[in-house]
């Protein structure tokens, strides 16, 4: 698979602030790539540089092999779905979708046919003559998609387009976007700060933080093998135990933490004995026992219990002030509030040792 878009050593600055720091990224053809990160991490700026709305201070943007770093958006073969949709309020749905085609000077009947086709594709027939103000949030979203797809761009860019929708509609649109991407076979670059959205939709998730890429990979990889503390806490939840690496062998590290020693898989970054590290453990991997279990064990007291229907969350605290979260199935196990201390444990393979 070739790469439709490549960013080479991109740097971006606003005044004196470096918002993107020598970033390298390749977007494979036909892939659903998500840029994920907290607000201010540079994900939107990266997207806007691909679209031509920002010019990098250094580095190159390649589109289908050609350097487009200094090409204006109206001469670039990308289209952007804006966060606020940016539908033109004085134009009907059909006029909005036709806008890009008219700029190309396409003949009238070609435009009409393409607009019909796109309105079928995004499932909005019979809306051609409505003004955007008369549409619901989900419908506006669909018009914005159709408009951006109208010029058949090499790459579709989406800047948090689901942010304004409510939870139910959001989930529906996630399914639709994913199947639209499959149907068109185009590469999509999707920006979001919502980790669940990123996991659900993407082929590749690129996790960004402070203008740099922390980790990229398939959703399962990122969830199972986070390679930094940031990724382990930003994608899903993790319990962290800070300590110092004692020894590393056969992919398992032994970490000295307050009150004992923990064992866990080693992350891919090179670590050596004596390094400050954290052991990260997912809440659903934590098991409860009344007796001290073999292997990893932390003695703690229950702080609070919250019932969430399909799962429950128990919050424990240990003698060293650490808070440990445990997710469990309330159908399979009951935890009673009480004052006695309990033991929490997990398999070595369920924890991961990361640089602190």
């Amino acid at each position, binding site marked *: 698979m070739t790469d439709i878009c490549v960013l080479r050593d991109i740097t971006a600055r606003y005044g004196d602030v470096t918002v993107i720091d020598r970033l390298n990224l390749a977007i494979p053809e036909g892939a659903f790539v998500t840029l994920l990160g907290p607000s201010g991490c540079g994900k939107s700026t990266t997207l806007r540089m691909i679209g031509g709305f920002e010019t990098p201070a250094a580095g190159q943007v390649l589109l289908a092999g050609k350097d487009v770093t200094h090409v204006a958006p*109206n001469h670039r073969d990308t289209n952007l779905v*804006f966060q606020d949709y*940016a539908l*033109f*309020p*004085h134009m009907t749905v059909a006029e909005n979708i036709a806008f890009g085609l008219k*700029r190309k000077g396409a003949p009238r009947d070609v435009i009409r046919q393409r607009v019909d086709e796109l309105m079928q594709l995004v499932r909005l027939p019979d809306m051609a003559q409505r003004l955007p103000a008369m549409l619901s949030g989900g419908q506006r979203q669909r018009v914005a998609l159709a408009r951006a797809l109208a010029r058949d761009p090499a790459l579709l860019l989406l800047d948090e387009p689901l942010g304004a929708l409510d939870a139910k509609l959001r989930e529906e649109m996630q399914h639709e976007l994913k199947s639209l991407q499959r149907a068109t076979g185009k590469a999509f670059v999707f920006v979001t700060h919502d980790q669940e959205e990123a996991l659900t939709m993407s082929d590749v998730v690129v996790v960004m933080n402070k203008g740099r890429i922390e980790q990229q990979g398939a959703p399962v990889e990122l969830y199972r093998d986070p390679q930094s503390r940031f990724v382990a806490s930003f994608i899903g939840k993790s319990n962290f135990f800070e300590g110092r690496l004692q020894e590393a062998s056969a992919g398992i590290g032994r970490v000295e933490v307050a009150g004992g020693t923990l064992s866990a898989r080693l992350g891919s970054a090179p670590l050596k004995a004596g390094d400050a590290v954290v052991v990260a453990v997912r809440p659903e991997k934590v098991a409860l026992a009344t007796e001290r279990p073999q292997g990893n064990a932390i003695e703690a007291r229950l702080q609070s219990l919250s019932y969430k229907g399909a799962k429950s969350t128990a919050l424990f605290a240990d003698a060293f002030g650490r808070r440990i979260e445990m997710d469990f199935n309330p159908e399979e196990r009951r935890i009673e509030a009480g004052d006695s201390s309990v033991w929490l444990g997990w398999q070595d393979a369920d924890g991961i040792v990361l640089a602190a």
Partner: protein
Amino acid sequence: MTRSFAWVGSWLLQAYYMLFVAFLVLPIFVMILMSFKNSEFLGFPIKGLTLDWYGAALADPAILGAVATTAFVAAVSTLIALVVGTWAAVALERLQGLAKAVAFVILCIPLAAPGIISAISLRIFAFDIGLELGVPAIIMAHTVHAVPFVSLMVLARLSHLPKSQTEAAKDLGASPITAFCLITLPFLKPSLIGASLFGLLLSMDDFNRSFFLGGFEPTLPILVFERMSTGISPQINAIASIVLLVTLSMGFVGERTLRRIGARK
């Protein structure tokens, strides 16, 4: 108990309010009434009504001439101010930081200057640039006065245009100029209509500038003022009532138009 007290209190408050509001419009109402009174004396009691004063006003060639001058000055100065004011607003919006602040303050100074001061300065200016007093000088003065209003109204709306609107147009292949014509201008439409109406009213109602820069063709306010030197007459009331009606209608139509446009968005 507490509730009925509150109710009476609220009713009284509303009644007082109505009385007070009536007081605000009472002078205008009395003026209109007196223009229909069949007597030269502008006081009560009113013994009979007549339309004669309106007939006389509308048959007076001086008045008709003044109406024509007023309309011409208003139309031309508003048109120029609209183009120049919009352009100035767009240019100002592109400036950054200190330059923007300075340009904005400079734009506001002519607005804040009292009418008579502004009129004096424009008269001196007209004299210095060799522009003779008369209709062109009035148009110059009204234009200079209207531009800041137009610019501020356009700026106010321009600041509400999401950046994404013009970006989307460019993203879809529009050049910056096409994007301005197809996206920015239609977005500014309510401001432009509002500014036009405001400019027309400003020009039609202006006394100071028209007085100090006028020649031998008076605008309507000047004519009314000149006639007043011989005392207020029912005929002046008739002219004043017509002017008031036209002004209010323009305001009303403008408000309706803007509301209709607003509702579509």
